[in-house]
């Protein structure tokens, strides 16, 4: 087994809200090996994007980050800010959701590449920089004839490919892709997914793919982490988790996805909780169809085979702990 590129343990990202600290990421651990793609899924407001930002050190002012993030053997959270800034881009790339708002409309594509490469690889000559940029663009199917065009001259799908090429030109070991296909059409989305597969074969970076689309996870990821209310509630190989989801939240997410084989609509009652004061015990218990007496009292530990935090997986619960929990009816009033 190769050493992980990224090893995150007990990461917490809290930020200031009007009603107290928002525990957007609250004790998250995972590891990523070179060439591995980890899908991070969950509803909006579960802390997915905050986790990505926290890893990059891009959290807003007034936020606190705790835990350890070991990247290539160095602890990112304890290193000085300047050193960390240097790693961002060169060591870790970030691909955003809206490519139009991330490219400077007044800069040619060539200038974007030139700037990024100049900042991070000072000893490259102008010629080498251009060669590196063209190589990255070609890998993503952008014809070299378009190198000196402006962002507005490209379609949405091409702009997203340019964003990916920009990240790749620096040859990062780790890339966070935050909803990279959400604003795109089906065919363009499929193109980007194919490209992610090719990138892995060619450059083998570790990728954290943040998405709310379980179909994309199934097609593009090796492992999946399901996030709910600031915690990863289930984590494991995609095939295993999707074939036999252990956590009721994962089961509910899979059931509520509308796919080409959907015969009947299912949904998850209620909405993700307020992260200022998340529910006690297991955070999913107010929405969980199989909640037990123990669930609101004690946070569940991790159970195997692929890891899930749910008391249902504990076969040694006492009868009173395993008794069903009386719950209030969830109405549309609490819907997301």
């Amino acid at each position, binding site marked *: 087994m190769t050493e992980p590129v990224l090893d995150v343990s007990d990461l917490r990202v809290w930020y200031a809200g009007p009603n107290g600290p928002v525990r957007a990421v609250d004790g998250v651990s995972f590891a990523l090996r070179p060439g591995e793609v980890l899908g991070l899924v969950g*509803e*909006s407001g579960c802390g997915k994007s905050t986790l990505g930002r926290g890893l990059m050190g891009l959290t807003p002012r007034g936020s606190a980050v705790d835990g350890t993030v070991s990247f290539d053997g160095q602890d990112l959270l304890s290193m000085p800010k300047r050193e960390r800034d240097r790693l961002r881009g060169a060591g870790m790339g970030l691909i955003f959701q809206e490519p139009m708002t991330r490219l400077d409309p007044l800069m040619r594509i060539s200038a974007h590449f030139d700037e990024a490469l100049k900042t991070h690889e000072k000893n490259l000559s102008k010629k080498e920089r251009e*060669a590196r940029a*063209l*190589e990255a663009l*070609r890998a993503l*199917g*952008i*014809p*070299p*004839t378009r190198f000196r065009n402006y962002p507005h001259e490209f*379609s*949405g*799908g*091409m702009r997203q490919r340019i964003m990916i090429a920009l990240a790749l030109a620096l040859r990062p070991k780790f890339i966070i892709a935050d909803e990279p296909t959400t604003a795109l*059409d*089906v*065919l*363009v*989305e*499929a*193109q980007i*997914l*194919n490209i992610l597969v090719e990138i892995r074969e060619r450059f083998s970076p570790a990728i954290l793919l943040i998405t*709310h*689309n*379980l*179909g*994309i*996870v*199934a*097609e593009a990821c090796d492992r999946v982490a399901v996030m709910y209310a600031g915690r990863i509630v289930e984590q494991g190989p*995609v*095939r295993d988790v*999707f*074939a036999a989801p252990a956590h009721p939240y994962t089961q*509910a*997410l*899979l059931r*509520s*996805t*509308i*796919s*080409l*084989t*959907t015969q009947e*609509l*299912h*949904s*998850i009652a209620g*909405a993700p909780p307020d992260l200022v004061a998340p529910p006690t015990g297991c955070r999913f218990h107010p929405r969980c169809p199989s909640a037990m007496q123990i669930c609101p009292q004690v946070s569940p530990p991790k159970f195997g085979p692929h890891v899930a935090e749910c008391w249902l997986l504990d076969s040694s619960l006492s009868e009173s702990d395993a008794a069903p929990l009386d719950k209030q009816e969830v*109405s*549309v*009033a609490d*819907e*997301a």
Partner: protein
Amino acid sequence: MPTKPDLSKPPPATRAPGEPIVEITDLNVYFALRANATARLLGRSSGTVRAVDGVTLSLAPGEVLGLVGESGSGKSTLGRALLGLVPATSGSIRFHGKELTGLPESQLRPLRRQLQMVFQDPHASLNPSMTVGRAIGDALRIHKMYTTAEERRAAVGVALERVGLAPASRFIDKYPAELSGGQKQRAVIARAIVLEPELVVADEPISMLDMSVRAKILGLLDELRRDLGLTYVYITHDLASARFFCDRVAIMYLGKIVEIGPVGEIFENPRHPYTKALLGAVPDPDPSRTVARDLPRGEIPDAADPPLGCSFHPRCPAAFGPCGWEPRDVRMVLEQRWTIVPADHYAREAKLVHDGPRFASENAVDAASGSPGEVLELLEDERAARPADPLWKGVAGMSVSGRAVLMDMKPAVEPHLQQVPGSDVAVSCHLYHPPTGSDPAESNVAPT
């Protein structure tokens, strides 16, 4: 035996069963492109975009018709034209036999009580400074449906509870900012149904919502259809929800319907190569499905300058002789080549030809710095490298002529929407209705 199709009559698949409530015939919606100031002063236009191009279809009461396509396919424009929100350039839209095109706003407005719309973005379709009750009540006031404010408020309450915002007293005095995305979309739906419409055009009603809420809103729309006997036009790029929700589906590409038919048949036996591509591209949450994706190359073309013949031909894996090949399509093939060949080859080859619109004329590829002989050599080399490329099925010959390489293209024939014999589906593709003198067996992909 290919016979000459009768194009005067629309294919039966475009017609709804029974007495239609809406009939659209040969509808065109064109938008003039804004030229720069000098051109406008001189009265020059810089072209038109055919957003909806010759669409014929009808809607039966109680049915859900899906308009499916990517951005720029014209599906939203068609939906808006149906409500008179964009003027039709030509053609006819009849609602219960009454012609809607050309009606002044004053006569359209009373009709809109029966024709309602639900927009994509619930955050943008509610006025942030109006309470939910006022936003919904306003629709009633404008259409003078109740006389007193109390009656209106009672009707608003009923509509709110109908869409699941119950008890209504909890929601009626709330501002949009106090509601979640799903609740806002419910309020927007309440505003549409409070007028007791017959037809609702729902333009991507669930695509801005969180995954877990989509099923709820789609379920609500389905319930309303059953309970209130609504007819829907469901506009979407999400094929999975279209399959679940629609009775008939029309697949659109660049302003035209390329395939239309009952939802089961379209999804189980897609015929048009574009429909096949769309269906193959939908990510599936079942990881045991490992289908290699063959995606159409390139991008949606510029709608102001659409390809000749079938609009999909430059991207189509099954395109052959009559599909509409032009010299400018050669550029796409060369650009593809340049992402594959070594960088120094590209540097040499790219200089031989022009960039952009000067690349090709109507019948030739022009030489730039190189001699036309070198350009011909480049094209022959590309043909030898990838002889199966659909482009070459449209090239009858290439020869040097003056400063250019003359491209002898097979004649382009524009496909029309025609019924596939023995089915309820109509498709606009030469594979199924080959023009005289062409042979679909030439195609890389056999028709199904």
